[in-house]
């Protein structure tokens, strides 16, 4: 029961001048800065950098191995094995690498010009975010520190005190009063819908998204170039381990069964015959593989 009594006893009267000269200006300045930031990022980022044809070739070559592994059963055994040999050799020698010379050098993002560029891009964006926000915060702190700007029309628990009354160190004041610095933070986090209205979807006025991206950067390491040599070596091993079971081995039988010309059971008998043969061939294949490993 003490809560409403406290609120009533604290019936502060705010000067309308505070509304006109502090509350609205802060909102206006923040909106304008957001728009400015959007324009600056547009200016700074320019057109997205295109990958060179060598880089495309590198990724597509890797894809080629994956496709051969997944769908290789659809082509005849000779076609499969010749592709397998060619690709494994190419992977081993690094034919498809962007710069075939440095196969063993570890990739350093600092020396790779492309990685450098990606990092610079992130830096620029962050700068465009941090500088104006610090300036505004300084401006508010300098001129309006300790100002109480508005009263929220609904009651809140005491826990919100640190959020809503930053910069006003009064333990007894009702929580619904909002200080100038807190008003700044509320705007900082809450203006995104307004930017979307003004600048359309996918704008870069709101800095919060970048902040979120920055916090995850440590984990995923965006912009870190991949070591394709290593990927090629893994793909080579995967390819070497891929057996080939031709889809079309018993296709005539399957077709005849499909059209009801041959009963399923006869097909099964036939299948057993073939599977025995297949087992032998697989065993042979294993033997070859072992030999191959020894050679390695």
């Amino acid at each position, binding site marked *: 029961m003490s809560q409403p009594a406290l609120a009533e006893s604290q019936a502060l009267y705010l000067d309308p001048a505070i509304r006109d000269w502090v509350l609205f200006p802060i909102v206006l300045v923040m909106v304008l800065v957001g728009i400015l930031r959007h324009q600056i990022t547009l200016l700074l980022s320019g057109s997205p950098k295109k990958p060179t044809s060598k880089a495309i070739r590198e990724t597509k070559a890797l*894809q080629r191995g994956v*496709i051969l592994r997944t*769908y290789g059963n*659809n082509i005849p055994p000779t076609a499969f094995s010749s592709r397998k040999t060619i690709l494994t050799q190419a992977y081993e020698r690094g034919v498809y690498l962007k710069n075939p010379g440095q196969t063993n050098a570890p990739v350093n993002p600092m020396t790779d010009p492309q990685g450098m560029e990606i990092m610079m891009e992130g830096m620029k964006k962050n700068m465009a975010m941090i500088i104006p926000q610090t300036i505004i915060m300084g401006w508010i702190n300098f001129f309006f520190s300790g100002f109480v700007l508005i009263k929220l029309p609904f009651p809140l628990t005491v826990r919100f005190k640190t959020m809503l009354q930053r910069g006003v160190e009064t333990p007894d004041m009702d929580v619904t009063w909002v200080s100038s610095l807190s008003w700044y933070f509320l705007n900082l986090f809450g203006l995104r819908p307004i930017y979307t209205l003004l600048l359309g979807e996918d704008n870069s006025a709101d800095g919060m998204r970048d902040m979120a991206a920055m916090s995850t950067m440590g984990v995923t390491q965006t912009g870190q170039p991949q070591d394709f040599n290593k990927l090629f070596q893994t793909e080579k091993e995967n390819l070497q381990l891929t057996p080939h079971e031709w889809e079309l081995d018993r296709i005539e039988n399957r077709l005849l069964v499909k059209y009801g010309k041959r009963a399923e059971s006869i097909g099964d008998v036939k299948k057993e015959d073939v599977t025995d043969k297949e087992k032998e061939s697989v065993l042979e294949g294993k033997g070859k593989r072992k030999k191959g490993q020894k050679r390695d």
Partner: protein
Amino acid sequence: MHSYSTAVSTLHELRKSGERKPDLVVSLGQTLIDGGLTRKLGDEAWSVYEQIFIAALDVGRDDLAKTCLERLEKRFPDSPRVELLLGMKYEAEKKLDQALSIYEKILNEDETNMPVEKRKIALYKTMGHNQEAINALVRFLDVYYNDVEAWLELASLYLRQHLYQQAAFCLEELILLQPQNHFYHLKYAEVLYTSDNIPLALKEYCRVIELCDDYVRALYGIKLCTYKLLNASSSASSSKITGNTDSHTLSVLNELATERLLHVYSHKKCSKVIKDVVREWLQNY
């Protein structure tokens, strides 16, 4: 007003599906441009202009093409995409060397411009430089491995030169890229048949039937393959020629193909003449 919205949506659908239908596009585009309605389209107008331009070139409406290109050049003075269109205009006017120099200029600035590269290969084909087109395509596919169109084009170029083994390689790649597409299996089977690899061709024809019921072309293929194999096995009886399929299976397959073909021709409302021709042919094989 109604015709305006349907025209725009039709053009949009055609752009999305990649169909050309130049006559339709030109007539729709003509009404749009004559009525000054392109301004209403906003940013979509530019891709509509591009579409109308290409369609106008297809049907030889040079005046309409010129209007579109002028507006596009005014809006995007340095765009390589518009320059590509200019090159296509030169191609339509048979100024092939000028077109080639434009394409090469764009590619010098940006080596990864895929549409221009493809256009250049097509231009080689128009010029009749098949070997150069093949070389350019091989280089192109070395970079863009998974481009289905390019593999298909390369296969047809090889076939023009009667290089069946190379064409078969391309078709194998196509099967790898789209294993469920029966059309590639059919083409592969036909190339194999032509290069006298009958057992493998038979298997591929069977695959086509498995993927697409009662595909007539493949049924004829099975018929021909089994006929040849049965004859070869009776005369030479070496398993090397016939592959590992036993003669009983071959004859059953042959019968199956006959039956399905007769079934197909009995269902369709085809004339008696055709039915007779088919029946006569089937008796011979």
